[in-house]
């Protein structure tokens, strides 16, 4: 088993799925000769050729629209959008087509497509390169949204996404791309979509997060533990359709819940999780669900990013508010 970072794990999943299934093709801006701006598709062009690793013109709507057409006609495209902040031109293709092709054809035509995109703040990036707008996809019935937190998870979740019969938006936290290495198996390794992962058992409070929030939550947990607080940590990993029942049953035991995300607070996923927890566990709740999120402002440029992004301290503060309500 090789030790690898998330970029390598994603690359491995792509390579193995392409080897396993001829109908898997990659497309996007700079995914071919260049190997992707984050090197995620490195080596695939050389291995599988330009018919299967397609450098496309610079046009997101058409990248996604073309992938939809490919998927309707028997391929399993894995499209890359260079950053989540550039996916918006393709939004119509997701909402009006990918999400409802199955429904509109009563199951005759389907869209087994994956659209990958790096996302999230904290890497000192340019404007528009730090967005966390997962909510705008999670709100649309018919779309699946997946975010891996570690290299191993990335491999298993991407493999499942490529094999999934429905459209999956696979968001890769740029901050985690090279943060951590771990053992990732070659060959079959699948993490089923739709199930949260219990990262850590605990009894005082349930901390819910995903993607790049997990290492931050981890740090927070370390200092919380020192103060005698025992948090349970859930990695949601599939953001839509979300495994709300795991959250609810955890909160029923702990009595407290803190959701951590980097998207703006208003209508971020924390809102829905909060609502579901109340609906499912009001009588167990000893404090309102705490939301540790970005404020409702545009992501600042790098020098101001500390005003925006989530730090372990802010998670600790949130947990303490929940504990002392």
């Amino acid at each position, binding site marked *: 088993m090789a030790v690898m970072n998330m970029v390598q794990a994603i690359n491995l999943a792509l390579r193995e799925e392409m080897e396993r299934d001829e109908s898997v*093709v990659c497309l996007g801006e700079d995914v071919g000769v260049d190997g992707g701006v984050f090197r995620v598709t490195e080596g695939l062009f050389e291995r599988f050729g330009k*018919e*299967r690793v*397609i450098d*496309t*013109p610079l*046009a997101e*709507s*058409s990248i*996604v*629209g*073309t*992938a*939809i*057409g*490919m*998927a*309707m*006609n*028997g*391929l399993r*495209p894995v499209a890359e959008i260079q950053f989540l902040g550039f996916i918006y*031109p393709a939004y*119509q*293709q997701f909402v*009006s*087509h990918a999400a409802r*092709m*199955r*429904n*509109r*054809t*009563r*199951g*005759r*035509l*389907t869209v087994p497509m994956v659209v990958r995109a790096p996302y999230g703040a904290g890497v000192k990036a340019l404007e528009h390169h730090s967005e966390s707008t997962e909510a705008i996809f999670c709100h649309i*019935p*018919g779309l*699946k949204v997946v975010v891996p937190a570690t290299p191993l998870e990335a491999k298993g979740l991407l493999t499942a996404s490529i094999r999934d*019969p*429905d459209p999956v938006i696979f968001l890769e936290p740029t901050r985690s791309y090279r943060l951590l290495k771990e053992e990732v198996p070659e060959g079959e390794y699948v993490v089923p979509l*739709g199930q949260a992962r219990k990262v850590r058992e605990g009894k005082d409070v349930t901390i819910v997060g995903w993607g790049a929030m997990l290492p931050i939550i981890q740090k927070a947990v370390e200092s919380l533990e020192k103060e005698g607080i025992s948090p349970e940590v859930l990695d949601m990993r599939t953001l839509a*359709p*979300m495994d*709300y*029942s795991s959250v609810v049953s955890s909160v029923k035991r702990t009595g407290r819940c803190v959701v951590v995300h980097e998207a703006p607070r208003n209508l971020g996923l924390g809102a829905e999780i909060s609502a579901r927890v109340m609906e499912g566990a009001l009588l167990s709740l000893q404090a309102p669900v705490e939301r540790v999120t970005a404020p409702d402002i545009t992501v600042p440029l790098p020098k101001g990013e500390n005003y925006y992004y989530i730090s372990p301290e802010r998670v600790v503060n949130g947990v303490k508010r929940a504990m002392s309500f």
Partner: protein
Amino acid sequence: MLTDDFDPLQGKMLSILDKDGKVNEALEPRIEDAKLLHAYKTMVLTRIADDKAVRLQRQGRLGAYPPSRGQEASQVGPALALEKGDWLVWAFRELGALLLRGVPLWRLYLYWMGNEEGSVLEGDVSLTPSAVPVGSQLPHAVGISYAMKYRKESNVVLCYFGDGATSEGDFHEGLNFAGTMRTPVIFLCQNNQYAISMPRKLQTAAPTLAQKACAYGFKGIQVDGNDLLALYAATEEAVARARKGEGPTLIESFTYRMGDHTTSDDATKYRLAEETAYWSARDPISRFRVYLERKNLWDEKREKEWSEEAARVVEEEVRKAETHAPPALDDAFAHTFATMPEGLREQLEFMRRDLPAKREG
């Protein structure tokens, strides 16, 4: 090559059958008699079925509907050049093309009546659903044709859209992708002179839509859109090119929407009766009938028989649609994902209890 002989940048338009049904023999495509008859009958059926839909809407028996009247050749002609296995990608005003491809009329009525079951199609139909968001289907056509090319199939995609669609970003992106990928796709623009109230000349400052192909490195041609032979000839050439791996073609079918945009629209608000009269004299069906009659393939008697037959068929299809069961609650949920997620199943069960009793079924 027709695309060379009729360069839109030089103001040329391909026309084979003139408005009175006189054929330009030098350009006349060779089409077997049965096919010609099939095309004609489909155009007549289309008109009758279309008129019926408008009447049904007026009677409150069908929802908002976009009439095809006047565009029958523009719809049937290009589709006539397809083989089985070729895909048809359409917008929403292509009744003739769908009928030619064998889509059951009653399913279409059912769809326009607002019943999801109208979208069910049996068998291996190479057909997308309607694409109401204007222009959004063009990238799909590229992807579908890419898959053909990738698997080294010899099939092609015929993709319809309107003059209004040429202004959308997806038109541009789709054609540009197709140009660089050289996929087997024919872009068929039904320029019916209007996008709702917007006349073609305000839609773009380019003198023709066909010339837009020059931005994508392939050929475009403008064709008399009420001339089935011209449409067939241009499409056949484009199809042949596509099958040979020589990439896409843009065909502008210069036609006219005789009716309102949809049954919710009133075209007299934005266009003059004279204009409609001008186009009336250029009807695609009557001129093709003259052509068939001159070829001794058609006559008054057959005309009468077929219009009666078609009218009967249409009534039967209406009946089938109208007696179809209403959709069930489960069906509204069933096709959201391949497997219904737990949370959605809970919602379905909740809705079953929450809906007022009279509403289900």
